[in-house]
């Protein structure tokens, strides 16, 4: 019999913490290897975590709704297998399957392989004890738990003492904060690390204090979810990082619409899902990005990082919040491949079956606010990218063609771009390429 420690898994390279949503077992319960032990939520995905071993749950160390740093021990299993600190394994990527249009079917997954024993956590160690005084000060100063967990401590066992915390606050005030140890992002690929890592702009406010200022029943106080907090932070940071400029182009979608209607039935029969405008737009974007590679880059100080791959992010509004799954290596996909990839990602976003690597590493993002009937939108860049394309609603409008008035399906496409490196000429040219491509698709296009 030996003890296995289950730790909070690191589901994505830039993730540093996870929230326990639901325990499926309690102490004393038997569990089989790969049986679901708990569900966790991170700022990007929710995930079921399978047990790394078979045995009996001996300890559950954190309650539901608690947020803990990755690699924190969260449970213990008594097992016959050899003892080790085993990371609770993240579910493997699901097979890309045909989805029935209406069903939200779970794709069957290959059996989970246990993760290799986690390396000894570098200081600051996860699961450190914070004294009442340190927590009081952190609360008063609006320092989040995740911020606290990254601070080096000079107390016993690397504990953050009051002195350490006050020193940090002082350094932060004077802008001399030393680079904090953030092991996950240290190993992240360069294009992820390019955005300056600014600490959470969100100050925790105690609802007890708010209730006096905003009394019920006239007011209701809600706690922002993790995803919402991360979205808040990202949006503020993006605007602070990139000087946003927009180029709005009118696009005659009539040709696209004709092709779509002509092929809709056969496509749906063949693929099992509806043919939308999105694959056409993705296809046009990819071609334009190949022509204007600077729009598919990121910024590091005084350097521009050009990417020789296109990871296309498609914004999806899910009930959890705004999520942007990414089609990796979209430049390799043909029309059908794009259509399948976009459909699959959207479906799995809505059923919360995305794998963390699927929401990372994007080089360009498309957001379709036309579905909300928005005519023209001004989107915010998805850092660390340098541009984002927003597509408005397609509406029939009178337009002038060859000095005559015709009724055409028209959409307004907005490119928000980072004027640190993309200027109006480039932005305009890039958009012209997209519009030209879409407006000139041949009617007999085979898709």
């Amino acid at each position: 019999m030996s003890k296995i420690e289950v730790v909070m898994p690191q589901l994505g390279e830039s993730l540093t913490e996870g929230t326990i949503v639901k325990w499926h077992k309690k102490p004393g319960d038997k569990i089989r290897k790969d049986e679901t032990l708990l569900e966790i939520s991170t700022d990007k995905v929710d995930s079921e975590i399978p047990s790394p071993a078979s045995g009996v749950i001996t300890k559950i160390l954190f309650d539901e709704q608690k947020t803990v740093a990755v690699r924190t021990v969260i449970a213990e299993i008594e097992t016959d297998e050899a003892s080790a600190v085993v990371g609770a394994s993240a579910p493997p990527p699901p097979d890309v399957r045909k989805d029935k249009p209406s069903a939200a079917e779970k794709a069957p997954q290959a059996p989970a392989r246990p993760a290799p024993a986690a390396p000894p956590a570098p200081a600051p160690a996860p699961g450190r004890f914070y004294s009442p005084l340190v927590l009081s000060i952190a609360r008063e100063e609006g320092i989040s738990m995740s911020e606290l967990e990254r601070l080096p401590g000079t107390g016993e066992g690397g504990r953050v003492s009051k002195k350490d915390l006050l020193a940090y606050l002082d350094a932060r005030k004077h802008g001399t904060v030393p680079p904090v140890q953030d092991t996950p992002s240290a190993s992240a690929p360069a294009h992820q690390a390019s955005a300056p890592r600014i600490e959470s702009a969100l100050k925790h406010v105690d609802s007890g204090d708010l209730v006096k200022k905003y009394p019920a029943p006239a007011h209701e106080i809600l706690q922002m979810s993790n995803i919402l907090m991360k979205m808040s932070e990202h949006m503020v940071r993006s605007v602070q990082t990139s000087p946003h400029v927009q180029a709005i182009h009118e696009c005659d979608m009539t040709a696209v619409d004709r092709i779509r209607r002509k092929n809709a039935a056969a496509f749906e029969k063949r693929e099992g899902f509806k043919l939308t405008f999105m694959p056409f737009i993705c296809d046009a974007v990819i071609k334009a990005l190949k022509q204007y590679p600077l729009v598919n880059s990121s910024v590091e100080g005084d350097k521009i990082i050009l990417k020789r791959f296109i990871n296309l992010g498609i914004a999806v509004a899910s009930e959890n919040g705004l999520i942007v799954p990414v089609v990796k290596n979209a430049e390799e996909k043909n029309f059908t491949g794009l259509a399948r990839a976009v459909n699959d990602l959207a479906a799995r976003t809505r059923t919360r079956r995305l794998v963390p690597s699927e929401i990372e590493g994007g080089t360009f993002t498309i957001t379709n606010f036309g579905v909300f009937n928005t005519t023209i939108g001004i989107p915010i860049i998805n850092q660390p990218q340098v541009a984002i394309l927003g597509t408005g609603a397609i509406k029939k409008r009178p337009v002038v063609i060859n000095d005559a008035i015709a009724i055409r399906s028209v959409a307004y496409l907005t490119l928000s771009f980072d004027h640190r490196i993309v200027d109006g000429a480039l932005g305009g040219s890039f958009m012209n390429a997209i519009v030209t491509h879409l407006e000139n698709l041949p009617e007999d296009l085979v898709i």
Partner: protein
Amino acid sequence: MARELTYIEAISEGLREEMRRDPTVFLIGEDIGEFGGAFKVTRGFLEEFSAERVIDSVLAEGAIIGAATGAALAGLRPVAEMQFADFISNGFNQIVNISAKYHYRNFVPVPMVVRLPSGGGIRGGPFHSVNPEAWFLHVPGLKIVAPSTPADAKGLLVSAIRDPNPVLYFEHKFLYRHSRGEVAEGLYEVPIGKADVKRTGTDLTIITYHAGVHWALEAASALAEHGIECEVVDLRSLVPLDRETILLSVRKTGRALIVHEANITGGVGAEIAAIIAAGAFEHLDAPVRRLAAPDTPVPYAAPLEEAFLPNVAKVREAAERLLAY
């Protein structure tokens, strides 16, 4: 004008001057008259105040306490002496059941003082070195004081004599001749129930009394050379405890070390630790720790007594460990 007296001289002076001021104050104890007291606190008193006011009692602590209680009820102000604090156990019933409870039952005050020479470090062995204050902490109706300096010793004795309640006055035998300090002339009172911050600091609070104050101050000086500033709170009174001063200090420093010579289990330190846990929980950056003698009788052999008693080095080490937490 201030001059230096030893701890024992300050006690004698306070006693003498209060007896001169108030004719109802009288003394009762073993060997205090002709012999001048086992430690010579009352040398010359018989000659000055006569046998009526300096009573050589029988060797029976119950009788001493009982007689003092009766005299206090009759309107006098007795200062009884236990030759060694250890012997209070023979007068235990009188103290806890009569002296402490009388006023609750009959509304008649019991303005008596019991002087108790306590403490070790004098090779007195298990029956002559005890610090029994914790036994009485637990008895409602008594006040308890424990001065650490000559100035406090005189002032607290005066306050104790003037207090209408029974007051146990613990005087530390080792400090008798090892503690010297400035003592103001004339009569003055040190308020009962008020602690004294003998040294201010920001890094750690040491809460203590009696000999512990001296160990703490010396350890604090040594630590100050390394940039650590300890605050030393001299309780002076054990009942009532000055909770306000204790909590204010711990909230300031976030770390509390309680030091006393009495055995650790159930000692005064345990009560103080509970007070701190309840009143300063969110201000604590480290657990509340106590440094005290182990749970054995006081040894007689010198090396054993040295190992048994706290001292400057032990206080310093305990402080350093708490600071490292």
